[in-house]
């Protein structure tokens, strides 16, 4: 049985992630217990919602340290959507009010997707919809079963810019914008899309994570 722990910080669609993982045979623990997180064999940091309130919840639950301790064990961690953005240093989302620092596990920040005119249709924000991935790093184990037939569900207004371009493992296109679709640094993985909401394509990616 593959064990995986989902961090529960009172924000986000934990159930969706849990059910997708259970569907592919994982043994899922949902926890906001710092000790439990540190001892886990695999961790998922889910995310739906606003960056600042999410980071506030993480700090309120005193989870920042345990996430960093878990990362230091070199076991795999996957941040999903906002969870990926939280792995970085900061976000410009609602930054005019009480900006919260990110986890600073991977160097970089998140910024609002720039809007340009395309095909006479203005790009909409949030970016909501399915897109294919342009995989920058074919050796990324997370993508081992992903082909050009697979597409993934995105819903976000902010995009992540990792400082080190080697951390960028996949892009996707939104109008003229290249959006960071996935990042990786050693044992730390992040995806902007929602694999738990991307049908069979997403389940394949989550299976690859369980096999890491």
């Amino acid at each position, binding site marked *: 049985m593959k064990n995986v722990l989902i961090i529960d910080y009172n*924000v*986000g*669609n*934990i*159930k*969706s992630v849990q*059910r*997708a993982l259970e*569907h592919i045979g994982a043994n899922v623990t949902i926890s906001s217990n710092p000790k439990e997180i540190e001892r886990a064999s695999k961790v998922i940091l889910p995310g*739906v*919602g*606003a960056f600042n*309130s999410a980071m506030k919840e993480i700090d309120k639950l005193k989870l920042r340290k345990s996430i960093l301790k878990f990362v230091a064990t070199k076991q795999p961690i996957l941040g999903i959507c*906002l969870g990926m953005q939280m792995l970085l240093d900061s976000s410009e989302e*609602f930054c005019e009010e009480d900006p919260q620092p990110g986890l600073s596990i991977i160097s970089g920040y998140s910024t609002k997707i720039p*809007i340009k005119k*395309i*095909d006479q*249709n*203005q*790009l*909409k*924000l*949030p970016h*909501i*919809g*399915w*897109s*294919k991935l342009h995989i920058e790093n074919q050796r990324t184990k997370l993508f081992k079963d992903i082909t050009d*037939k697979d*597409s993934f*569900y995105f*819903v*976000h*207004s902010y995009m992540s810019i990792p400082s080190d371009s080697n951390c960028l493992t996949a892009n996707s296109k939104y*109008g003229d914008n290249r959006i960071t679709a996935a990042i990786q640094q050693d044992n730390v993985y992040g995806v902007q899309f*929602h694999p*738990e*909401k*991307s*049908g*069979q394509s*997403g*389940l394949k990616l989550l299976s690859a994570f369980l096999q890491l």
Partner: protein
Amino acid sequence: MRNVRVIAKLEVKPPNLVKGIQLEGLRKLGNPNDFAVKYYKQGIDEIIYEDQIASLLGRNGILDIIEKTTDNVFVPITVGGGIQSVENVSDALRAGADKISINSAAIQNPSILKDIAKRFGSQCLILSIQAKKQTNSWEPYYDCGREHSGLDAIEWAKLGEQLGVGEILLTSIDQDGTKKGFDIELIRKVTDSVSIPVIASGGMGSCDDIFQAISKGKADAVAIAHVLHYDLFTTAQIKKYCMNKGINIDNYNEDLL
């Protein structure tokens, strides 16, 4: 060109899936979960549940349906009908919903939109506008089309965007369930007035209706019910038709046709 989504809209009167015409005369069609699974297997992009009896807090209500659906359907799921508070949103998300749509409570107290957007993010908040054509305008209705708001649909959509709504689900009550095509004029007026995605709903009878809603109405997504429920088309057939007309749809699998 942008990618367009095809969404199944499942109106429910828990525990049943129902469908009416112009929001009235609801007929029972069966177990909503079976329909959701069927559409998922056909390659649907999203599912929207609309609860006709606001069963959010009751036993065997909408949350139970969501829990069951999310066991084997892995696309985004929206819940609407009966959301009154930030706590209701939290409950719906915890049951497995990805987004919530809100109509009545927002009309009665628009600031709830701001509260929800701030707490959970704009991406999980859909403003549902159920509009009825007046002489020179469209008026949003609520409580399943029973109450009229006195608002103007276009102005209400703009205010919703300002208050942090991430998407608009725009239903034409006049067209709903009639299979006579979308209200293209209404859709275009709203898509020209806001810069958030607009989901067009109400009236699909043919694949060309969807093409018109996207090309002329500039809809970002279409929500369909009747033609799917009665097996007039499958999701894959609809997507194939739109792609042949030059519309971008990324989530498409030829094998599902």
